[in-house]
């Protein structure tokens, strides 16, 4: 218990959380502080490139293992299972329409790259190790939830003519070739292919500025999260509560699965974070296209303004402590 508290306090005092809080408070106070759009997107690209490449190099050094395949398979299965649980809970506790319910469920089955990146920093700062292939698991967990969400929404989609049908070609491109998946997997493969030599040549770029850039990105996230929260209109108490308890339920699945697979503590913690996090980059774009009748303001506010801050401030230390207790 004391350990959990120490991890939580250390996390609260970390520059990452403090910069996020700065952005959040600045936006609540209606400050004019803002990160230019192109800069924000550039920072996100950098973070995905760096985390993908470092994961690939780590796999090149450690070699491929059956553990990787088992964890990847487990991640994909969890990507299908978590949306079904989320969908059931939303049906029991909220009055969301069918399409919005399915879209929200898809967000919670998918993952948040930035939550994962922030968690890797906390895990590393605590002296824990994690397997580099967790980056690949993360990339693989992005899309199953989108498919699950579409299956859950089958009854909600009313198409009376070919004009209103979902443009499947565009959707498939969005799901399988969205920017974050391409960059993460691409950088991961480049990391595997170039290994230690590759790290020697671009290490100063992907390593040294990483924490600072993460802080700047989290400042932007704080601004965006608070503005979204301020402008949200359809956020009811049961929905906001869902944004808090759903990550905890998914985290239980993650920590139990990771421990059952025999992963080390750091990897269990990261699998737990992946399960608990909700997407706010890849899935919103796919859902907007696939389920246009769903209310985007609801799923974006929940994942970005409720679950992301919760995971960053409270969730990550909690999930690491759970991993230490079960897998340590």
């Amino acid at each position: 218990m004391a350990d959990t508290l120490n991890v939580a306090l250390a996390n609260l005092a970390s520059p990452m959380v403090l910069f996020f809080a700065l952005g959040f408070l600045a936006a609540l106070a209606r400050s004019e502080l803002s990160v230019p759009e192109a800069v924000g997107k550039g920072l996100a690209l950098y973070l995905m490139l760096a985390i993908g490449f470092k994961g690939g190099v780590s796999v090149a050094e450690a070699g491929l293992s059956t553990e990787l395949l088992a964890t990847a398979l487990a991640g994909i299965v969890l990507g299908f299972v978590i949306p079904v649980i989320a969908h059931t809970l939303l049906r029991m506790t909220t009055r969301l329409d069918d399409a919005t319910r399915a879209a929200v469920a898809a967000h919670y089955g998918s993952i948040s790259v930035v939550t994962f990146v922030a968690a890797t920093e906390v895990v590393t700062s605590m002296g824990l190790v994690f397997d580099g292939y967790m980056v690949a698991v993360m990339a693989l967990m992005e899309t199953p939830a989108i498919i699950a969400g579409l299956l859950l929404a089958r009854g909600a989609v009313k198409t009376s003519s070919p004009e209103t049908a979902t443009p499947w070609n565009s959707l498939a491109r969005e799901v399988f070739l969205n920017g974050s998946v391409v960059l993460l997997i691409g950088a991961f493969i480049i990391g595997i292919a170039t290994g230690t030599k590759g790290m020697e040549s671009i290490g100063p770029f992907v390593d040294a500025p990483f924490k600072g850039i993460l802080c700047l990105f989290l400042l932007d996230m704080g601004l965006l999260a608070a503005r979204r929260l301020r402008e949200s209109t359809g956020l009811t108490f049961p929905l906001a509560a869902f944004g808090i308890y759903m990550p905890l339920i998914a985290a239980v699945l993650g920590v139990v699965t990771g421990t059952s697979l025999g992963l080390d503590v750091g990897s269990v913690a990261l699998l737990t974070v992946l399960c608990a996090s909700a997407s706010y980059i890849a899935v919103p774009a796919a859902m907007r296209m696939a389920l246009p009748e769903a209310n985007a303001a609801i799923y974006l506010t929940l994942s970005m303004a409720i679950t992301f801050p919760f995971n960053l401030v409270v969730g990550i230390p909690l999930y690491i402590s759970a991993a230490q207790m079960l897998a340590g």
Partner: protein
Amino acid sequence: MAIETTTCKRIELAIAKAHLRVFARVFETVGVTGWTALKTVGGAGTSGVWQEDQLTGAEDHIVVIAITDDRGADEVLAKISKLFERYPGIVSVSEAQVLRPERFAGKP
């Protein structure tokens, strides 16, 4: 000397950026070969206030303008009214005076 103009229909759509391809397909089907999409920075609608979505792009809206003849406008509106069963957005039609009217004639 008065410049001779021709009256056409100006169709203005406000839709989600993610749905541009779907609406553009309508123009293509009807034979309206020219349209322009404009970025927006924010607004308010049935889902509340929104602003340019800097991170996900999921809430980005655009305004699409097309100018066509009466037949083209009628066909576009008929098809778009069906799209609105699923896709959010608004459409307005107004009269516009144009030069070179042959450029705006819908191709049947």
